[in-house]
């Protein structure tokens, strides 16, 4: 495959996604069919529905098929499929409540409630490397398995949770 230096834009008319069990398939208007596709957000933190890179996981380097500029403009059926696939690919629980944070031997043990359920996770107690400050009120913490947990809006948490987060993340 020859490398191209231009972004190939996939327009809403060009793409048709479908689901074959757990595979997200893609048919382009020129008839090209992909039995599996991988969707990646170019800006996972900052852009909601924009700039989705559609890739072919059956190639060695997961070659890019093209970029969807805004999946909000896709047909409803396609949009739902894309949303679902992104939800699956990006497993980033959003913290809605912090029950407790314990500090012990260089690790922080978090007990939290997230949009994906209640859970506990362990984070290395090194704020420089494992906490990402997206904005003054939005944070991402990364646990020892490199799983990310997002605090979308610190101010939206209850005061107990806020206090714990501020104390532990030194903000």
């Amino acid at each position, binding site marked *: 495959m020859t490398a191209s230096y231009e972004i190939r834009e996939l327009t809403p008319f060009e793409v048709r996604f479908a689901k074959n*069990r*757990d*595979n997200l398939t893609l048919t382009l208007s020129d008839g090209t069919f992909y*039995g*599996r596709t*991988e969707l990646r957000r170019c800006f*996972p933190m900052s852009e909601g529905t924009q700039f989705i890179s559609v890739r072919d*996981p*059956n190639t*060695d380097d997961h070659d890019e098929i093209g970029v969807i500029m805004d999946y909000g403009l896709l047909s409803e059926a396609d949009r739902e499929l894309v949303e*679902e696939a992104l*939800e*699956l*690919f*990006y*497993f*980033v*629980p959003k913290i809605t409540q912090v029950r407790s944070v314990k500090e*012990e*031997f*260089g*690790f922080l043990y978090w007990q939290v409630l997230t949009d*994906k*359920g209640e*859970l506990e996770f*362990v984070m*290395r107690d090194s*704020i*420089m490397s494992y906490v990402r400050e997206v904005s003054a009120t939005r944070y991402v913490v990364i646990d*020892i*398995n*490199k*799983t*990310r947990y997002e605090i979308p809006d610190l101010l939206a948490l209850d005061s107990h949770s806020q206090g714990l987060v501020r*104390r532990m993340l*030194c903000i």
Partner: protein
Amino acid sequence: MKAESKENDDTALIAEQVPTPVLRCLETEGGSPFRLTLVCKSDLAPNGEFGEQWLLLDEETFYVVSRSVDGADLRYKYDLARISDAHIERCVGNGLLSLTVDDEPQVVLHFSNELGKEFGAIAQYLHMRASEGVDVDIPDIHADANRCIYCGRPLLDSTSRVCPRCIQKSQVFKRLMSLASPHRGAIVLITVLLLGIVAIDLTPPYLQRILIDQVLVQGGSYKLLLWLVLGLLGLRMVRVGVVIWKNRLTIGVGSRFTAEMREKLFDHVKDLPVEYFEKAQTGRLMTRINTDTDELQGLISELTMALMRIMTVIGISVVLFSMSPSLGWYGLIPTPLVMLAAYLYYRRMRPHFRRRWMARRRFNAMLNTFLSGVRVVKAFGQEQLEERRYKAHNDAYLNSILQVDLAWSRFFPIASFAFGAGGLIIWYVGGRSVMAGQITVGTLIAFLGYLGMFYGPLSELTNVSQSLNRFVTIAQGLFDLLDEEAQPQPVRPVRRELLNGGIVFDNVSFGYDPYNPVIRDLSMKIEPGELIGVVGHSGAGKSTLINLLCRFYDVTNGSIRIDGIDLRDMSMDDIRRNIGVVLQQPYLFAGTVAENLAYGMPNAKRIDIIRAAKAANAHDFITMMPEGYDTMVGEGGGGLSGGERQRVSIARAILNDPRILILDEATSSVDTKTERQIQEALDHLVQGRTTIAIAHRLSTLSNANRIVVMNHGRIEEEGEPQALLDKKGAFYDLVQLQNRFSRYQEHAELLGAAK
């Protein structure tokens, strides 16, 4: 979970882990719980939320069953014969297992990051089973997990083997004591001296009591007064001497002990396999060897102090109660208050200290980035932005300092109140006793004196458990490092002073992470004296091949043989003597050029050093330097250009005269002229040796006997350069790509020369 034998209890054990609804689902699909060979649970539901999905394998079939509150549903069922491959893919925060069923890819489930290893092992098993047949061993998917050797919980720190909860303090202490045994005498003496100091400290109030009761109140003799005062003076003087003696001893033992510890650690670390250094980042190792041992020393003296405080507290309690049991109890009343105040203090202050420390680090990091990137800042005219950033960090730091000081200023008065309250109780109760004639004034004053010495150490003891934990954790960390196994060496190595240099890669597979192979089933035979060029895109596995040949890592499967001897059966000395490496980024150690040239041969003769340098095209530039071969080069080779460093490292290889030579992109980071000089040097060097050259610039491989094109860990193409070019395959493509590029480059250089 190994099920090599098909005994009932073994399989029953496997089925036991699976919940009943899932087993029932399996049975309705015609499977049997007793035939299961491997099961693994994913913690994610099909919709990506937390849930449960079970992967079940028996001899013939692959199942995925999802489980929810409503029951269990079959999601996938395949005959194993239809599965020709399997692999895992990393998503964000989770991973997926993809099978190749009837040559079509099929994603079957997602799992959270925590289970990556388990599902990786399963994918590897399915892959091996498909490629090598049904006899492949079923993996024990939990064996590899990095778990605490005591409680089995997953370990958080990959470089230790015991989780912090399970550290057995007594054992750590026992081991530390055995390491400290050469200093046994000094330690005993220190303990005795500590007891002495405590005893001396306890005496003055007692003498004061006599002073008041027998001299001041009852109008005693001037002589007794003088003696008592002289006694107090003497005690103080003796105390000074004893304290100095004790300090000298503690410092001496502490520093010597930590120095010995460091030496021991370094001695051990140098024998660890390269693999370990990849696993444990350099920074963390540095911390362990240098900072942690320093901290250990600090903690040793802190714990000595704590020991002294404990003795003081016990001693004072004994004296207080023997003087007046009832007053003793009153004196103890504020104790809980003092302890509580101290505890709260440390609890309140810790986050503030933490915040201050963090603010400082952020501040430093920002400044560091700015200073090292100052050219970029200026080039893009972003000074204003950086100034604002700096100010923000500075403010944050200032705030954190203010917070610490404010918190301190609030808590200090409270703590001193708690301390003082005890004295007031004694003044009141003791005063009444004095007035009632139950105790003397001297006893009361002595009592107050003792109390004043009592609460301080008591409050500091509340923080001992913190230092103790830190101490044990650090010590355990150091022991973990000491216990890390050195690279296995053959018990009875096959000694071979001089090798011919024939190399065979026999079905070699390898992955830094065992489930993510970088080299796959690679076989290749290299004759003695052959020059082999290895090419391929970055990430194709070229450098890994070199790492394996140097035995920086051991192969996962297959074997590498030199002259028919398995690398693992050879002594490290023989390997190192016979294999010379010129790396892409040559590393020079702090020392003179001559020392660096003779790094592998400290006894090399001067003339040999010069000959080697000459052969490497390095003699001229070395001689032209003011200090010639005696020029000091810094760590990493500061002061020399990339090309010069490269030629020094080539000369180093020439001096060593190895049978096998490895050139790892030796000319990649230099300009064309330097490259030519290096190439000449290399042409000289490869004469009569087996050479494996990895090259970016394919032109440098023109005189190779054979070219090997690698792609994703496999050999894609192999043959004589001209034959490969004629074939117009992968090598031809690479050459084409590069020619287009080098034409630009030559053009640019010509222009540059013309100017």
